């Protein structure tokens, strides 16, 4: 981009003084970083968890800088008060009892006069169309709405640079879309420079002008988004390839020479223009109709308040060893159904019976799972299978995390730890509420493999369409409190136009059987090699 650099980072390094098990250890978080941030761009920093992207981002604003030793130089043309930062956890950023007071907070802290406060408040609220939320209690908002409120509260002080630390990682895809739309408007209509980190780039890739890929405290690639994606593909390392959004992966697989696609539309046009020969793909078939039933739900009604039933007239049978994914939009009753199956909530009308020896339930908010001080203490119990413990820690790469406090882990690491704890109990019924929120693709593969070998029945509520399509044996769609339809995973997405994976969106008109990247690999395989 031709505009001038607002912030230029020269040969920057950063080390933390970590205090682990009574000893101080230096941990290098960043080394040799050279990066320019230009006016009006959206810069996306991605990389595996723990690669230092958050440290880099937080160092850009003086007030948010972590404690540690900084070396090198950060030259900034923008005053620190004109830089705003939004963090990933929507829960901790709203502190008062009404949205209005939260929005006003930054202005109150800077002692703006009454006229300016009213003016800024009215223009911001009208611009984002959040009048309806103004007098609500923060607890009644969805995660996406909370994130938008945190963002707006920062925008009241008219920042020039906006820093976002994994802003959509804790949101479901629909809320994430709502949030990225807001970001796009901010950048396009107001020209605000945005720097954000993300380790799961599918939701935000179409926004980014420039992409920085970091690995082990260093910047590996930095360039225009499409070029960086191509670099990642050409590096031929599975770990790096996993970070590519599915759409880009498909387009690079089909033709490396063309510019990388970042939206399903581009991929669709590209696929049509290539006119590739298709191979028939083998269909796997799992038959669970006659298997033993583990969960039986008959005519279930449940309501949280007097207003409406959250679940109504729901019938569901779950067979032994099945991997069932429950899909549906926000507030369709997915979590409620899981809580009823696990016995936390009791049905008001109807029957819900689950037959199991050992059940394990993974809540949406993982903090309510941990009670001990280290991951090891959380996992270990007296009658556990030690060889299984060792193999689990190996497969999930938990060795380094074992002696850390669960709250010190990143969101993805927490999910790994929780799954390890659950599997170690050898359950025959596993219930998962949004298990893939902040996982990268390689981890998803490992975990679904572990779930399969454990031979337990798995019931999972998820928004992650790719995950459901790859690993589930059956999907059900929950709509308006009842089960709208139930099918095996492949056919579930086949006929869908909107609620389907991005591969199916692009290739649906060519062959509706193509749902996943693997299908593309099978169908068009051999051409690239």
């Amino acid at each position, binding site marked *: 981009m031709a505009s001038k650099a607002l912030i230029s980072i020269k040969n920057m390094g950063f080390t933390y003084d970590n205090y682990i098990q009574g000893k101080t250890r230096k941990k290098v978080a960043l080394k040799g970083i050279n990066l320019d941030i230009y006016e009006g761009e959206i810069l996306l920093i991605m990389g595996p968890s723990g690669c230092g992207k958050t440290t880099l981002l937080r160092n850009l604003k003086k007030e948010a800088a972590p404690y540690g030793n900084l070396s090198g130089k950060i030259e900034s043309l923008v005053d620190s008060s004109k830089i705003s930062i939004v963090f990933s956890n929507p829960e901790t950023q709203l502190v008062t009892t009404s949205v209005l007071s939260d929005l006003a907070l930054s202005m109150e*802290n800077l002692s703006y006069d009454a006229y300016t*406060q009213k003016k800024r408040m009215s223009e911001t609220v009208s611009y984002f169309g959040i009048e309806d939320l103004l007098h609500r209690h923060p607890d009644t908002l969805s995660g996406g709405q909370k994130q938008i409120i945190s963002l707006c509260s920062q925008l009241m002080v008219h920042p020039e640079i906006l820093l976002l630390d994994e802003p959509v990682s804790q949101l479901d895809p629909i809320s994430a879309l709502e949030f990225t739309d807001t970001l796009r408007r901010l950048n396009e209509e107001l020209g605000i420079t945005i720097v954000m980190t993300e380790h799961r780039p599918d939701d935000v890739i179409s926004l980014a002008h420039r992409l920085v890929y970091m690995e082990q405290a260093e910047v590996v690639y930095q360039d225009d988004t499409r070029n960086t994606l191509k670099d990642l593909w050409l590096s031929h390392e599975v770990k790096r390839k996993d970070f590519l959004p599915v759409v880009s992966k498909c387009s690079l697989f089909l033709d490396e020479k063309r510019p990388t696609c970042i939206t399903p539309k581009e991929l669709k046009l590209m696929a049509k223009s290539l006119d590739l020969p298709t191979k028939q793909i083998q269909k796997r078939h799992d038959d669970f109709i006659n298997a033993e039933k583990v969960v039986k739900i008959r005519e279930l009604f449940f309501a949280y308040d007097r207003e409406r039933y959250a679940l109504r007239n729901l019938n569901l049978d779950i067979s032994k060893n099945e991997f069932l994914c429950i899909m549906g939009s926000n507030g369709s009753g997915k979590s409620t159904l899981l809580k009823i199956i696990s016995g936390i909530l009791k049905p008001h009308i109807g029957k819900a019976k689950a037959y199991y020896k050992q059940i394990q*339930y993974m809540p949406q908010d993982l903090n309510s799972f941990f009670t001990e001080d280290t991951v090891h203490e959380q996992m270990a119990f007296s009658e556990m299978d030690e060889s299984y413990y060792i193999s689990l820690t190996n497969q999930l790469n938990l060795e380094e995390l074992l002696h850390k406090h669960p709250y010190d882990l990143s969101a993805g690491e927490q999910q790994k730890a929780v799954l390890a704890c659950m599997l170690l109990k050898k359950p025959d019924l596993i219930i998962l509420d949004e298990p893939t929120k902040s996982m990268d693709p390689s981890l998803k593969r490992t975990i679904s493999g572990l779930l399969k070998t454990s031979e337990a029945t798995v019931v999972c509520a998820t928004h992650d369409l790719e995950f459901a399509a790859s690993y589930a044996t059956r999907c059900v769609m929950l709509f308006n409190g009842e089960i709208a339809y139930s099918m095996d995973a492949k056919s579930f997405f086949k006929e869908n136009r909107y609620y389907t994976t991005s591969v199916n969106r692009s290739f649906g008109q060519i062959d509706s059987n193509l749902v996943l990247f693997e299908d593309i690999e099978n169908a068009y395989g051999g051409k690239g090699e």
Partner: protein
Amino acid sequence: MGIRNRVISPFYISHPVTLLTYFTALLSCIFIFKNPLFTAVAFIVCCILAIYYAGFDRFLKSVRWIVPIGVLVLILNIFLVHRGSTVLFYFLYNPITKEAMIYGIYNMFMLMSVMTAFISFNALIDSTRFLYLFSNVLPKTSFVFDMALRYIPLFKKRASDLSAVQNVNNKTNQKNIKDKITKSGTYLKALTAWTLEEGMDTALSLKVKNYGTRKKVHYARYRYTIRDIILTVIFLSFSVFIYINAFLGETDFVFYPVTDRLEIKGYTLIIFLTMTVTIFFPFILEGFTAIKRGCTKIWLQKH
């Protein structure tokens, strides 16, 4: 009912200071007038206020514990106080007097009025208005108080979530008390760690919002209108009026040894009427607005 009435209420939209002066006047009445008839009227007003502004459900919920407390005070006064000259009967060789009974009734009404007044107080002066009133005097304390108001329900919800998840995942059949206490201790530890950990994040997010760098001001949410000034003057002058009367001894009522007669005449009647009009003032406003709204409706239907 309560919320719907509040949204379009001409009294609810008043400035918090106006509402505060109204409640000052109301509570002064309750505490200063010793005549049981005055207190009874105040009690009726408090009940109507609570039902109208907080809703019947919430009123009933609170009445369930307010009435027993009032009755308890009455009974204690009857059986424990033996002053007064008109003996009604003897209970376990102790005289039960008419005067003690009347004083008990007065006391019961006074306590119940104060408690019901606070139901409507909570509905009319909710936490944001309350904070607004005190934020000019104590800006930081009121902010911390607001944060506490948000975190207490959150803490409760997390506690129930945590115990639900743990009960599913670590099912034990042991029911002895020692295990239960250990378990609760672990939960409490986890919950505290969780809250403190999040507190660090919250502190950071406050820091980046420049908290504490300058003197905190309060968002100008309410505007003082001419209507507010008129109402404030009415309520304040009434308060001053009854304080002067209290100073002159016009509001006193003798209970022991012989109770004054419960009749209202002369100057007391003037005080009584002033009080009734003032503490019924919110409903006078509501009435006028309701009539105007009704007229508009009829006019709209005709045209």
